[in-house]
């Protein structure tokens, strides 16, 4: 038994020592815990950890197999994302106890706060006292047992799992219902109580998902998108695309869903040009050799930064939206090019981890596939707040894509139309976020850069919060970003364009003098080295390519990702369709594309007279439209548009 006295020790050092002891197979005793946050996070060994007193936020969070014993009370987020193992709390637990557990056993002898077991996947959460409101909120699976009162709205919007209630039912949540119990399952509950030596004599009622919400009678008729370019000009206000849209909605009575990126042209980096001619004569045969492009991202606060051979990353795209084969191809290509790949929502596969050189692990509110082991083997962490394509929404994956294997990796029931939560259970504001970031750093020993992904909206405010909350970098995603599925109206009309996002971010950070305290990775509709350099000129430290990489790897942009039977095998989980995708061949194409991007970046940097990408400045650009001039604060020079297709190139 190793004894750790928190009265004179920083939590960071304490957690290091707890993990060391656990790794050595030693049990741990924590004295004077004094309700400190993050006690024991990140432990992945089956040892006993005794907390002699009360613990703060996220006690036992992000762990696998330890057995925690907390004598007194705990703060919110108890056992956050705990895989296996157990926690027994002698007193009460705060809000979201047992959030996102994936197999752990959590026993609270007293009462528990609101939203207990939110998005839990597997395992058992037992509350011997009363629960507060919305216990089982959006739970996907596992078992909750409440011996006392239920609190309001029990099982609100739960998708799967079971809640056994021994006490009074205050009210049922939306889409939850009472069903009959079977004696075998009651026996199992009682056996569980026995194991933790908890006496209970009463009867149980059982609450499950009623399955009435988010399920629709009339299926949306799938159509191939109608390209329409005038879109909303004067003459064609009621164009064919609008008519089709009205017709389909008049059949289904709800918003439409579709995949891919926006159908409308928006202000874009394309509306900027370089002030100087990009003269090919000045570029030479091998500009790559003449320009320094190596870029490190994420080291501002002492973490090991991503070390990129050029200021380019792969944008987050999930295994789920994309097939395993497509993800593998992207990972291989990113590794070959020496840049970073990103898991997107929904977990990390071994194949992807092995193929990618550097891999960012994305973490969403649904906590799908989020676990300590994958965090530990990542090269960077990313908290998803929203994405450019559909800010305000979590991931959306139509049932056709939620295969058994995918459901397994995400910890959800197979075959559901997955609409991930819009918010994190434990991030309700900037202050929560600080503590969450700290938890992630504690759990991974401060090794990994922690970033935040923001779909572009109120960037002026959001970016200030991001820098104040201590993120290492922000992934800024304009509304030109794509997605596997989303509400069609949201994709077209929520968020601001990528060019607007970066300009607003720069202005905001400059206004508080904090530009140097955070790095920005810009994404959303960037397609090549030209867009990349423009993004860098506007202030981004690096850019990310998503759809463009997918197109390089065989995507035909049919905009039917949401249907789930992608003809090329990219955006599908249908094995027959996936078999059409040749990962190795397409990896080579994606890699070649990335190398062409590299060539383009180097060529432009060199033609502008620089030897290092970091020398790029906003003044290297001019605007070709009045809108771009206004947004970017650049001179409007429409004459350059007509100055020839590639000015001085020939």
């Amino acid at each position, binding site marked *: 038994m190793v004894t750790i006295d928190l009265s004179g020790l920083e939590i960071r050092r304490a957690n290091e020592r707890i993990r060391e002891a656990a790794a050595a197979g030693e049990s741990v005793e924590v004295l004077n815990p004094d309700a400190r946050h993050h006690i024991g996070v990140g432990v992945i060994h089956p040892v006993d950890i005794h907390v002699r007193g009360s613990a703060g936020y996220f006690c036992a969070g992000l762990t696998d197999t330890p057995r925690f014993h907390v004598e007194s009370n705990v703060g919110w987020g108890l056992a956050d994302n705990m895989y296996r193992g157990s926690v027994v709390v002698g007193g009460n637990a705060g809000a979201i106890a047992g959030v996102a557990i994936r197999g752990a056993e959590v026993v609270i002898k007293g009462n528990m706060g609101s939203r207990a077991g939110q998005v839990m996947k597997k395992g058992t959460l037992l509350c011997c006292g009363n629960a507060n409101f919305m216990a089982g909120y959006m739970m996907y699976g596992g078992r909750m047992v409440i011996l006392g009162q239920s609190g309001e709205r029990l099982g609100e919007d739960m998708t799967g799992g079971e809640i056994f209630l021994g006490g009074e039912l205050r009210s049922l949540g939306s889409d939850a219902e009472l069903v009959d119990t079977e004696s075998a399952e009651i026996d199992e509950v009682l056996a569980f109580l026995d194991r933790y030596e908890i006496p209970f004599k009463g009867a149980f009622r059982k609450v499950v998902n009623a399955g009435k919400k988010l399920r629709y009678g009339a299926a949306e008729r799938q159509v191939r998108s109608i390209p329409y370019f005038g879109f909303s000009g*004067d003459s064609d206000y009621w164009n064919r695309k609008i008519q089709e849209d009205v017709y389909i909605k008049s059949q289904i009575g709800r918003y439409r869903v579709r995949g891919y990126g926006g159908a409308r*042209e928006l202000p*874009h980096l394309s509306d900027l040009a370089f002030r100087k001619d990009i003269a090919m004569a000045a570029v030479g045969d091998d500009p790559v050799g003449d320009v320094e492009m190596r870029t490190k991202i994420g080291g501002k606060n002492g973490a090991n930064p991503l070390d990129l051979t050029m200021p380019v990353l792969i944008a987050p795209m999930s295994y789920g939206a994309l097939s395993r084969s497509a993800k593998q191809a992207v990972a291989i290509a990113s590794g070959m090019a020496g840049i970073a790949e990103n898991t997107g929502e929904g977990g990390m596969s071994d194949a992807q981890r092995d193929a990618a050189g550097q891999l960012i692990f994305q973490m969403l509110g649904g906590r799908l596939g989020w676990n300590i082991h994958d965090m530990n083997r990542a090269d960077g962490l990313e908290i998803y707040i929203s994405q450019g394509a559909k800010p305000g929404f979590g991931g959306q994956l139509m049932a056709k894509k939620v295969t058994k294997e995918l459901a397994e990796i995400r910890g959800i029931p197979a075959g559901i139309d997955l609409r991930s939560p819009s918010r994190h259970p434990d991030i309700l504001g900037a202050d929560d976020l600080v503590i969450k970031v700290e938890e992630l750093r504690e759990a991974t020993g401060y090794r990994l850069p922690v970033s935040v992904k923001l779909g572009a909206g109120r960037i002026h405010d959001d970016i200030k919060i991001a820098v104040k909350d201590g993120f290492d970098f922000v992934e800024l995603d304009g509304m030109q970003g794509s997605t596997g599925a989303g509400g069609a109206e949201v994709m077209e009309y929520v968020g601001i*364009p990528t060019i607007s996002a970066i300009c607003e971010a720069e202005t905001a950070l400059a206004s508080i003098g904090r530009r140097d305290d955070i790095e920005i990775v810009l994404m959303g509709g960037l397609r090549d080295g030209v867009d990349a350099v423009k993004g860098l000129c506007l202030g981004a430290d690096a850019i990310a390519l998503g*759809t463009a990489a997918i197109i390089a790897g065989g995507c*035909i*942009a049919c905009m039917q990702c949401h249907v789930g039977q992608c003809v090329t095998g990219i955006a599908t989980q249908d094995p027959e369709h996936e078999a059409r995708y040749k990962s190795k061949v397409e990896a080579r194409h994606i890699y070649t594309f990335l190398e062409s991007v590299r060539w383009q970046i180097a060529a432009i940097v060199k033609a502008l007279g620089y030897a290092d990408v970091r020398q790029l400045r906003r003044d290297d650009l001019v605007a070709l439209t009045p809108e771009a001039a206004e947004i970017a604060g650049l001179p409007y020079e429409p004459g350059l548009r007509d100055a020839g297709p590639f000015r001085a190139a020939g």
Partner: protein
Amino acid sequence: MAALDDAGANLLPPELADDTDDRHYVPAPCQIACPVGTDAPSYIGYIWEGKFEAAFEAITATNPFSSICGRVCDAPCEPACRRTASDGPLQIRNLKRFVMDKLGAAWKPEPAPVTREQSVGVVGAGPAGLVAAHDLAVAGFKVDVYEMTDRPGGMMIWGIPAFRLPPGVIDEDLDRLAARCPGLAIHTNMGLGRDIALEELKERHDAVCLTIGSWWGKKMGVPGEDDPRVIDGVEFLRRVNDGDRPQMPKAVVVIGGGDVAMDACRVALRLPGCEHVKVVYRRGPDEIPARGIELEGAVEEGIEFVYNTQQVEIVADGDDGLTLRCVRTVPGDPDDDGRRRPVPVAGSGHDIACGMVIAAVGQFGACEDAATGALMGADRVDTEWETMRTADPKVFAAGDGAFGGSTIVMAMGHGQRLAYYVKAFLEGNDNPLPYRTPWRTRRVPVAQDLDWETLGVHHPPFHGVGDNPVAFPEIESTYTWEAARNEAARCYRCDAETGSADYSVRNREDIFLMARTARADAARQAGMLAKRLRPRENPFPAERPATVDDLVFLPANLSRLVIDPYREACKVATDLGSGRMEIAQPLFVAGFDNAPVDVRAGVAKGVEGGAAGYIGVRPIGGGAPWVQLVLPGQIAPDAGAAGLVHAVGPRFQAPAALGRLRDDQLLGLAVSHAGALEEAIVFGLENGLDVLLLNGNAAVGRDWPELDGAPDLSLMRDAIRILRRLNREEEIDLLWFGGLRSGTDAAKLIAMGAKSVVFGMTVALAAGGEIVGDRAVVFAPDRGEDERARAVANILKSASGEASMMARCTGKTNLHNLEPEDLRALTLATAEATGVTLAGKH
């Protein structure tokens, strides 16, 4: 249109129809692979739509031998098809055949008259010569074609057996050619050097084209090949295609792996006496040049392929037969053409016994004419590819006889190129723009087939040698309409926009090219970069009006809490006139005063089902609240109406008889003109009116005014500005009518300041209305009342759902909490018209 190609330099003269300057079009790989530039994606799209005549036009526009090509083209389009890598290429040739079989025989093309003085002589009526003749005749020249055999067609008829190409099919094309080109005369039995001399042709014509083909089979160069039982493949096919059906030995060996070998072996198998055919090929199955479908057909018919085997000698076994002495080979170093040279394996000698050897190892061109001979190299006419000229300034050449053995369609491509340079020459243009195949598109919409991703390759039924092989029955059927449509549905449409703005067809193709160009290839990298540096067209030109489309919502992120748009509640209930009227959602419907009775009945039910209200001159019926639109001097205010809204003209005049007929009746004004706004607002406030209906589409006295286009959003902006200036914003409720097409549009107007919105045209569309002609709406009669009611209720439900979804994205739990600050404008025009900040500014 003159076209600018990808490199930005290769212009084509205006008379060559080419669409590559259309920024929404990129020629698809299949079209690029086609030597005559056939617009395959368009005809495939037309087939799916059932527009066979349009498909026929697209097919035949650049190909006078479309019926023949539908049967026997080697279809380089198919391996180029991007679906090949997925689940197999589109069966483009079979689709062409489907159309040609449907329309090819009956079609009567428009004759192209002779319009010029000059004439051209063409030697050889094969695919190159006839296509050149066709193009020149269509251009107005008189053309005479001299053919040494007794019929036109060249290798198309002499080289291809009837089981692949029935004679009737050839006649279809030739008949069409004759009808199309009255100035084109074909003189058969006119051999150059035999019946006519080049010098004579040069005197008769202003230019001469040599398209003499590659007519003679090459020798194998092995001992024993002079035995009469060793024959050459092209000669063999010529004999059979002339009607000969020789008695064959039991066992026949064909040497070679090209198209002639494939036809020869299959012909041999069908002839009397032949029981077994072997094809001996010196390379492996991966290198065999024969087209896949030919090879598969041969295999299916029972022909044996002996790969990696090379003949070294033929030994006669008296009258009994032949022994073909062979060695096995292995692939060695790459040859000049990149293929690995077969290297004999020592000690691998073995014999193949047979009764006949057919050598199909290549062809050469020859001509008995002395003057022509002087223009020839070893086995073909010396021709400069860049100009199609020979050493004689008046003599041009093309086809196999100029550039070596190729395919029918490639020879046809040569013919087009030849015609281009001959025409330039005849027009006195010594320095024409370099030729490239022109590419056109017919801009056919993408097929709306729900199964296009899963439909697999469909091959038409294959019959093989048939019941009576020697009659050469056709080996394959034409598609049925259903099969053709399914096959057509599979097309990726690489040529077309798919609806993505940022990944337009041009951007996609550029990315595709970037993914296939090595970084070290600096020249191509520079070319691609130059292309990528070109700016896009400005999507927001000055003439683009302010529009609700150019407004976006700002989502909640960190600074605000997003409300889960899938699950969490957002209130939409609406109170108008401080409690005088409460509706479940802020939606009204208007515009059906003059609609047909049954439509009105359906809409009335739908409005009720959608929990909205109705605004109109007269009540629509049903249970939904009716707000009466009172027009001056028309129907008097009705005490039964839930509200009275008096229309105000362009210049404000206080309405007569203004007043509530009962206490809970909503009272207001409808304003359509900015000029009347200020006075109407002041009047409304002074008289305690409840609502102001702002009409952004102010067409006087006409149904469906929204069809005029984008509404005038500045009316809303100005109304809010006036109310703010008076500091009485909360005292009157604004209703908006005009140009709302979705719940998103509704939410935008609500954010700008409307308390409720009015849908017109959108509901008409939902109720089965179709926009016809100049701004009229016709309702399809085939919809029942309940069907219309359901559709109207659904569109209202979806509008309400979408509006609240927007509100929740911005972090609102009540739709009415949306405010202008939740919006950003994408264009300066819209920012100006709405007073909303430009996106990216704070």
